């Protein structure tokens, strides 16, 4: 039974990891794999259904959109942007959140209390509402989306890093390091960070799934990357007006999002179980 459970654990991690690797390979190799240029307009081939449906045009495997652009090619290129935004925004918010959270947990005091008040304040504004307001204020561009998501997401890391640090500050090995005169920076680098890295990694994985979803939502609302850039969110937004005639424009980019986010979440579940053996 126990062995079966362990296998199950690795299975979730393995499947999630495999999906992620596939998605990254597809995104990196997009220029080689895509049958068309993502922005190549062909007005004679507008709204062609997927190749297996009647009226489908074989070279356009997943059909074309209202400007005759190839849906498959746009999904492949769109994946690059979604993954890039997912990874970079999590790295950004992770760095900010961990620095602030560890400082607040390690030194505490007025600084720590103030920082945590800011965290509370920001968490009282629903994530998407905050992201929408900030991105409406700064305007649409790739870099801005990454910054907006990082600004909106850091409190989660700050809260987690602070809580995990607090559990360690008075641990015997930290006391020992302090009593032999090690500097705070050294203690944090050598004793605190390695011990909180596991839970931060799990949080980062879940957060990346959430960031990919949020990027898609922002792009869908026209507040993410510029609307003519191919991303999964902008593709769905562009297909919204053709739901009664061309379902494939909306359906396939959404499938790409679901598969990717599902993979990331499974990886998160696997990592969580692996790093917290007692919990499962």
């Amino acid at each position, binding site marked *: 039974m126990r062995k079966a459970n362990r296998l199950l654990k690795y299975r979730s991690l393995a499947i999630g990891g495999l999906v992620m690797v596939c998605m990254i390979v597809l995104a990196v190799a997009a220029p080689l794999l895509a049958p068309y240029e993502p922005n190549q307009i062909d007005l004679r081939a507008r709204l062609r259904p997927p190749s297996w449906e009647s009226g489908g045009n074989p070279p356009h495997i997943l059909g074309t959109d209202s400007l005759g652009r190839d849906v498959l090619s746009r999904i492949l290129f769109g994946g690059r942007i979604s993954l890039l935004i997912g990874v970079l925004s999590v790295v950004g918010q992770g760095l900010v959140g961990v620095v602030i959270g560890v400082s607040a947990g390690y030194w505490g005091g007025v600084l720590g209390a103030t920082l945590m*008040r*800011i965290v*509370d*304040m920001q968490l*009282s*504004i*629903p*994530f*998407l*509402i*905050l992201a*929408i*307001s*900030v991105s*409406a*204020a*700064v305007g649409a561009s790739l870099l801005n989306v990454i910054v907006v998501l990082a600004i909106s997401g850091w409190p989660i890391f700050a809260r987690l890093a602070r809580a995990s640090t607090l559990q360690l500050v008075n641990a015997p090995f930290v006391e020992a390091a302090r009593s032999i005169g090690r500097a705070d920076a050294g203690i944090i680098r050598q004793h605190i960070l390695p011990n909180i890295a596991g839970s931060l990694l799990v949080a980062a994985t879940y957060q990346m*799934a959430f960031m990919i*979803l949020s990027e*898609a*939502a922002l792009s*869908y*609302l*026209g*507040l993410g990357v510029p609307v003519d850039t191919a991303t999964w*969110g902008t593709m*769905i937004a562009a*297909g*919204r007006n053709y*739901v*009664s005639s061309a*379902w494939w424009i*909306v*359906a396939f*980019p*959404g499938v790409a*999002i*679901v598969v990717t*986010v*599902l993979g990331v*979440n*499974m990886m998160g*579940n696997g990592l969580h179980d692996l790093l917290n053996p007692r919990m499962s």
Partner: protein
Amino acid sequence: MVGFFLRRIGTILVTMFAVLTAVFFLARLSGDPARVLVSADATQEYREAFRSKFGLDLPVLTQYRIFMSNVILHGDFGDSYRFRGAALPHVLARAVPTLKLALAAMCVALLIGIPCGLAAGLKPNGLLDVGVQTFALLGQSMPTFWLGIMLIIVFAVKLKWLPVLGRGSPLDLVLPALTLGFSTAALIARMLRVAVIDIASEDFVRTARAKGLRESTVILRHILRSALIPVITIVMVDFGFLMGGAIVTETVFNYPGMGLLAIQAIYARDFVVVQVFVVFSALLVTFANLLADFLYALIDPRVEYE
């Protein structure tokens, strides 16, 4: 406990002050609204008149002082740039449909989530459990807006069971509520499943069975009742997520709630309306969290707040 809640309310007041400040400066980042709202070929005098009418020609700190004192003393956020009159009543009027939608979504989430979570937790690793776990994972991984559009394609366009556009009947609420409630349903199912598995092996459950109580009584009275406690907290905390999701859902279905109003206000740079919306959402979320703590203490006598 009274002390705990009084202190919590104190924190909420400080938080709301900070939210108001943040919202004020955020809106100023987006540039001069006169540029967007006044037509490009208007005269310079008209532009100046517009700016002075809304106090946009004053120094920022003066604007901030006026804004804060008006909000705190009179509940006045200022006039909407787009509509006539104060922005607050516009948002409040649209809050009712949004709350209706959120409530319907929560009902959907509970109606799907509780039976799924209970069934899965009672027979872990069974076929049903695998199905529920898959559903839970899917709910976590599906973009709300995409689900909404897919539901429209399947139920309104292909099957023609429901109208594509609202016609003012209660049926209009079905697809939006399903869209908005789906991920919460998955969350509830996942959390309840874990809680049921934990509680099913507790002594008091074995005692209840040993007393010869009917299985349905054991499940409903003893297991489900204790397992629902963590779920209540989740439901309340998830309320904020629901408010964010409401923007997207309302946009997909063209549902006339405050989320749609806010997104239209953003497109139109009507930042007074956006401010009211953000502050109002923050207030709702904060009170939902407070209510969660309160309910928690009410239901579970072991919980004590200092």
